[in-house]
């Protein structure tokens, strides 16, 4: 477990990569650290961060959820449609979050309840939700939204504060829950060994099901907080979000087979991937090579971590 020998060892490769990137940027492109850019970076990463929190919980139980991107797109459009239909904006937001929770519940019932493999179930949900939405809306944008939609009517400064505060609060809350609450420890226990957890009196199926519902609710919330940054809702959002969040969680040191990992690692992972994207532009790297560099950095971080840990101890 992460509190035992070598605390922070899981988060270290991502942290080191982030530190190295920031060091290069501070020399080559100090403008990266302007308050405006950092704020934009946090705002742009907020939605990914919130979905990645949900993904962390799911992956800690040893499962995975690839339906988050499709769910994100559906929740955003539903949020827009409800607001457009005249529902008060906060109530529409609750509706969208509920929709995310519902998709999470279906995942949770099939994976936790029936014991089906999560990658297949959520892959199926991805196809059903995304293609179903495409058919129903044909990709149309939701426009003519009420004035209180963008920034919840708080204005740009107020809205940005709200999004950043909500994200920070969720990060702190989830970190505390996973570390200190019985429910949080149950997630680690089930992810480490479901059978032992069951023998110890924990309900593994309920834990896995709840993890998916949590992830769904957080995805819905992320869709809402992302949507209010704009005055319209596009018909196709969230493509590739599942890969982005899974990559952030794993790069942050959470083990794909479950049981080990932390919220802190996920925050570092999101920051690293977000900083790579913008940072490479600041360094003047052509957009054409960005994907290749991103892939190379992820693989190099994984490999160096493994190589270093082999050198340190034979047990790892």
């Amino acid at each position, binding site marked *: 477990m992460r509190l035992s020998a070598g605390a922070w060892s899981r988060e270290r490769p991502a942290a080191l990569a982030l530190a190295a990137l920031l060091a290069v940027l501070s020399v080559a492109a100090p*403008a990266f650290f*302007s308050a*405006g*850019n950092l704020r*934009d970076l946090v705002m*742009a990463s907020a939605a990914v961060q919130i979905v990645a929190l949900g993904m962390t919980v799911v992956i800690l139980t040893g499962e*995975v959820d690839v339906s988050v991107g499709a769910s994100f797109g559906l929740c955003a459009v539903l949020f827009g449609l409800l607001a457009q239909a005249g529902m008060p904006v906060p109530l529409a937001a609750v509706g969208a979050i509920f929709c995310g929770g519902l998709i999470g519940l*279906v995942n949770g*019932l*099939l994976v936790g*309840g*029936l014991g*089906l*493999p999560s990658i*297949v*179930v959520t*892959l*199926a949900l991805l*196809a*059903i939700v*995304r293609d179903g939405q*495409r058919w*129903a809306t*044909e*990709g*149309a*944008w939701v426009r003519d939204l009420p004035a209180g939609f963008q920034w919840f009517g708080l204005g740009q400064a107020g809205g940005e504060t709200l999004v950043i505060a909500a994200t920070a609060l969720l990060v702190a809350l989830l970190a505390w829950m996973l570390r200190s609450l019985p429910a949080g420890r149950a997630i680690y226990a089930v992810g480490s060994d*479901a*059978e032992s957890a*069951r023998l110890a009196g924990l309900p593994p199926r309920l834990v896995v099901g709840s993890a998916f519902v949590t992830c769904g609710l957080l995805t819905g919330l992320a869709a809402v907080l*992302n949507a209010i940054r*704009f*005055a319209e809702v*596009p*018909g*196709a959002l969230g*493509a590739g979000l599942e*890969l982005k969040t*899974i*990559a952030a969680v*794993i790069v942050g040191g959470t083990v*794909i*087979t479950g049981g080990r990992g932390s919220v802190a690692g996920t925050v570092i992972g999101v920051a690293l991937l977000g900083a790579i*994207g913008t940072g490479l*532009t*600041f360094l*003047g790297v052509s*957009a*054409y*090579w960005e*994907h*290749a*560099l991103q*892939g190379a950095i*992820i*693989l190099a971080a*994984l*490999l160096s971590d*493994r*190589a270093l840990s082999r050198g340190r101890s034979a047990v790892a």
Partner: protein
Amino acid sequence: MTDVRRQELALGGILLAEILLFAAIAPNFATPQNAAEIVRLGVESGLLAIALTPVVITGGIDLSSGALLGLAAVTWGALWRDAGWSPEAAAGGALTVGAAGGALNGWLIARWNLSPLIVTLGSLSLFRGLAEGLTGGVDNYTGLPARFLWLGQGFLGGVIPAQAPWLAVIALAYWLLLHRSVRGRTYFAIGNNAAASRFAGVPVPRRLLEIYIASGVLAALAAIIYVAHLGQAKADAGTGYELIAVTAVVLGGTAITGGRGTIAGTIIGLATMVVLQNGLRLAALPAELAGVLTGALLILAIGAPRVRALLANAPPQSGETGDDMRNSQLAVLCGVILASAALIAGSNWWLVRSVERGHGATSATTTPAAAAHVSVAMMPKAKGDPYFISCRQGAEDAARETGVDLIWDGPTELDPAKQNEVVEAWITRGVNVVAVSVENQAAMSTVLRKARGRGIKVLTWDADAEPDARDFLINQATPQGIGETLTDEAARLLGGSGDFAIVTASLSAANQNQWIAVIKARLAEKYPTLHLVAIRPSDGDRDRAFAETQTILKVYPKVRLIMGIAAPAVPGAAEAVRQSGRKDVVVTGLSLPNMCKPYVHDGTIGSVVLWNTRDLGYLTVRAAAALAGGTLSRGQSSFPAGRLGTLAVSGDQVLLGKPFVFTKANIDQFDF
């Protein structure tokens, strides 16, 4: 093994049901030509799925195969065209790259014991990125020699698609390997328990390495067939194929956790998906149904055995015991029943909707085409794109006025391979006129010539094919006209000099790259003091355009103008400029007036360049109806286009007019 066998049988039953259903409702579904077409559609993804089967049996996964296909395709193109190799030698080079990519995956997974999911996720990004970097996203290798194209487009003995034997041979080889060899048994052993296999003397790392290398080599073989099939090699080849392969493998009964699976199952799984898509196309039902149904089928395929076990009251694998189990099982069962009821209700609603729409403008699905009406099949580049959505509205107006049956279908996102599939299906179905907005000129022209050979009238609209592949082009504006108008607008808004940046669609988008080339030429020729400092991709995603614009504004503080050249990029860029509070920066570009209105009014967007998209759709269907009725032929100088009045015809082109510049003064007169 019995579970796998049972699933194969069940899936075979579903496949049979699909075939019977489509034979009944889809015109020309049960014909030898269509059978050949179905085989041809399945070869590339089939090769990836076959290669994936042993990978999944060992408990691994390979998500990078689609990206490796793309990298191998552009490698082939670069070796053949740029390095002057023969097609065969270039194919050897592509296979080497495939083997190297597979070896990288295998080395990281087997030697360093890293999770296959993460490694191949990372290498997906790496391979796709290398393909984009090597080609600058722009290079598209076309003009391939005929003997090479035969491999993807020809027939053996007039009926068997030329690529089919490859699939058959590879499938047979993998069947022998997996189910009839000692080596094959070791894959199952590794999947069941890698540690135990190692203790039993199985060289686990070497076995893993070899199947990942084989997966890479087959991805390269699929790439070569893909290139010959489509007649082009581009960095985006094979996008999303990895998910098709994973779905086929799992649908075919291979356990995603390893240790269980068959090659036969994978092939039946793939056939179920391909037949479903082909049948829906021929029946003129929306292709999105295929995704929804495949998803439902996937859950059904893996859920049915578990539900059966629950019903038989056998404890599940990770089982609880005692009476409390019944309650939880009952709850789960109720949940599943509710979910499937919702699915069925949902699909009914969709079916009703599509039938209603059928009464409105499109063809009824149950009567054979061309029985009473003229049927016009019209294809956008991407159905989800707001630009094409507004074209469709005009098209349906014209269909109502002229009484033709309009079939509107195409890829949901930019996808040249899918465009070909749809036109092939229309040829088989037998429509009167095909009207296509062409994404890939070389490949589409081959298919359109085939359509003309069958007596189908062919129009191109929005983007052209090769001139001899179609009867008329509905010309809204040439790349030349668009690029020049955009550059002139930028010069006007900047007062003749200054820095600007472009936010494009994806880096490999063909149209956008043509425009960028014109813009660069125009800058060099007319505006030496106007500097294009950056080109950033938005992937047609407004939020990405927003973030890219924010970054551009900080990295290039001297930029005074952002030019968005994809419909969602312009409002995305405008919102970023507005939120930055930079009053000295203005946005222009190619977009839909309705998306940009608020920003045009507050001055963030200086101008929007576009033609009337509704009129473009309207004119296309008008011309299609006239072409079918014999009232439009070459040599005319004008064409009466209904509510648009009389438009000029020049040779084999019907002209809509010049690109239009929308500004604060006139934008409110338009609603699209």
